[in-house]
């Protein structure tokens, strides 16, 4: 064995290093240098010159809050292609079908994120395109404050720590419209904190349905979704 020992070590190292290089390091370097691709004129895309468009770090705070609350343990942000699941066919999941924009998620979609929150389980909805499904900030705030305000059967935790209850002065514009058993006592209102606003900003930015440069029109998907 004394002679075999270097061979043993070499074997262990090779077994580890080969996949490390081929599966992690090389793809990592390749995917890290992905740059925004410009649209050609034939792509017929309005108001955008490249995908993904580069924007500043306004949503980095939102992503941090999303991560620290553990949202990714119940929500995925990943739409599988049709050979791997029916995600794209579910209304709104693949994107804005009305404009023929539904598609599976691509590596470029996450370029503006710190980490892609692909997720662990789908105890709740997929959020890859939540920003196209819901554009009303108040909807998000109600959902985060207590999801039972919208769906009795929802099992999403209520994130009251993101909201502040304060005595009613001049009625705040962004106060939550709480009714029924969720209403607060007379003379008080509930308003979102900065954290809640940052989180909603992040969620509103989840739009992974833009047409990719050079992408053909996705007839099939459009057909299925208009059939609904």
């Amino acid at each position: 064995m004394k002679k075999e020992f270097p061979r043993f070590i070499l074997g262990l190292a090779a077994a580890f290093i080969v996949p490390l290089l081929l599966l992690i390091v090389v793809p990592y370097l390749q995917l890290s240098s992905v740059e925004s691709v410009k649209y050609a004129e034939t792509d017929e895309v309005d108001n955008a010159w490249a995908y993904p468009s580069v924007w500043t770090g306004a949503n980095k705070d939102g992503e941090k809050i999303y991560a620290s609350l553990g949202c990714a343990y119940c929500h995925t942000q990943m739409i599988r292609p049709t050979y791997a699941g029916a995600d794209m066919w579910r209304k709104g999941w693949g994107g804005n079908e009305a404009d023929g924009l539904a598609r599976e998620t691509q590596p470029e979609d996450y370029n503006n994120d710190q980490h892609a929150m692909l997720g662990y389980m789908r105890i709740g909805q997929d959020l890859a395109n939540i920003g196209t499904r819901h554009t009303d900030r108040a909807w998000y705030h109600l959902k985060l404050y207590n999801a039972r305000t919208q769906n009795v059967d929802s099992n999403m935790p209520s994130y009251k720590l993101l909201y502040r209850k304060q005595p009613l002065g001049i009625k705040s514009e962004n106060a939550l419209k709480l009714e029924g058993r969720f209403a607060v006592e007379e003379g008080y209102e509930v308003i979102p904190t900065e954290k809640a606003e940052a989180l909603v900003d992040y969620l509103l930015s989840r739009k992974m349905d833009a047409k990719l440069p050079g992408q053909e029109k996705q007839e099939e998907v459009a057909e299925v979704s208009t059939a609904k």
Partner: protein
Amino acid sequence: MSEAMQEASAQDVQERAAIDRSVRFPVLFFFTSAAGWLFLATLLGFASAVKLAAPELWDVCPTLSYGQLFPAHMDSLIYGWAMQAGFGVMIWLMARLCRVEVKNAVTLITAGFVWNVTVLIGVVAVWSGYGNSMPWIDFPAYLWPSLFLSYAVIAGSLMMMFRRRREGDVYVSQKYIFAAALWFPWIYATANLIINHTGGSAVMSAGVNAWFMNNLIYFWFVPVGLSSAYYIIPKIVGRPIYSYQLAKIGFWALAILAGWTGFNRFLGGPFPSWMPAISGAAIILMILPIGAVAVNFLGTISGRSSLMRYSPSLRFTVFGGIMFNLYGLLIAFSSYFEVSRLLQFTFATLGFDIMIIYGFFSMVMFGAIYFIVPRITNCEWPSAKLIRFHFWYSSYAIITIVAFMIFAGLAQGGAIDDWSGDFLDAVRRGKGYVVALAIAWALISMANLAFYYQLLMMFFGWGRKTDGPTLIHKNPGEAESAEAAAGFATEETAKA
């Protein structure tokens, strides 16, 4: 096992006693702190399952939301319990098999202390909302160097023991321990560097995360668990392993395949499509090494399986081995698109992870702990009844969790796959199963309380002071080994 080991001469016995004395404190330190963490982890598992069933419960306290309880539960289960129990078993097995005394007990305990403190800070941080939603690696970024260093000290001592070993054949358990000790720091450092310290591809940090999870399973949990099973099973059955050649093939097949797994968690994900494909293929091929282990264990045990009735160590180890094989088959199945479209991202994911961490690894570790602790404390487990209680409650509960989570996954995945239906159907269908999950974790907590109690008794030297091990279904002193209890003729006793 070599001939020399079976010759239990007086000198051998003395030598073994000296080795056991030298590892006593570090091994006991790791076992007792691991058992404490295990109890906490199962309580957190219970609480997180309750929160899934009743989301508005304990609403006033923000840290009691599922999103924070669940990662705290998994992290304390993995870093608090599983890895520390593994350290204890690795140190004892390595010392025993290499026939060397441990000379740096204080260093090992110091490293263990640092490990515990770091994990404590990490779990509290995740629990109170400073995690990063990266499963199993969600401690704040500043903590990983400390875990890395304390691991390096432990792994370094294991490797030094291997270098100092007495001449003789190297047993497969030693190889597994050496390999696991070597591999983990690389995986851990790579994952942390890419996720926490480089501003590169966002989507690859999710990919590296999945790769880390599967590498932790196949490069650490599986080798350490198997090293223990390859020792315990032949030892208690009283014959050498069925085929050494097969063990060797299994070892290298695992080593070659393990590094390619991980991306199968994101089948159809936003990666170049060869990456999930190659991981799925590796997972399916993994049936080969797992099958090799199954054949080897079955061949070793066959004809003597009645020993399981009496020996707690064998019972736990064999249960773990069965779970390991089932896991291999189920996870291979779920790497096919037809299955993964239903099971991916459902409760089945959780079921599979619990199956390998708890059903296989933890149960094998319990087996090893029931074997090791009497030898290093010179007293026997106080109560066979409590061991039985621990075994049955754990095994029933773990089977419940795995089975219910897979069925929940099918129900939930079916509802999501039915794309024209209401998404809330998936939530509604999962609800009943979640209650079962909570009950199962409560049962496991009770079982582990019994385990912790017995372990503390042993720690303080309050065990039974008789010769003759604690055997299930036998009164103390009635039989001097499981072999004798099962009525097999023994030339050399199992106690060694």
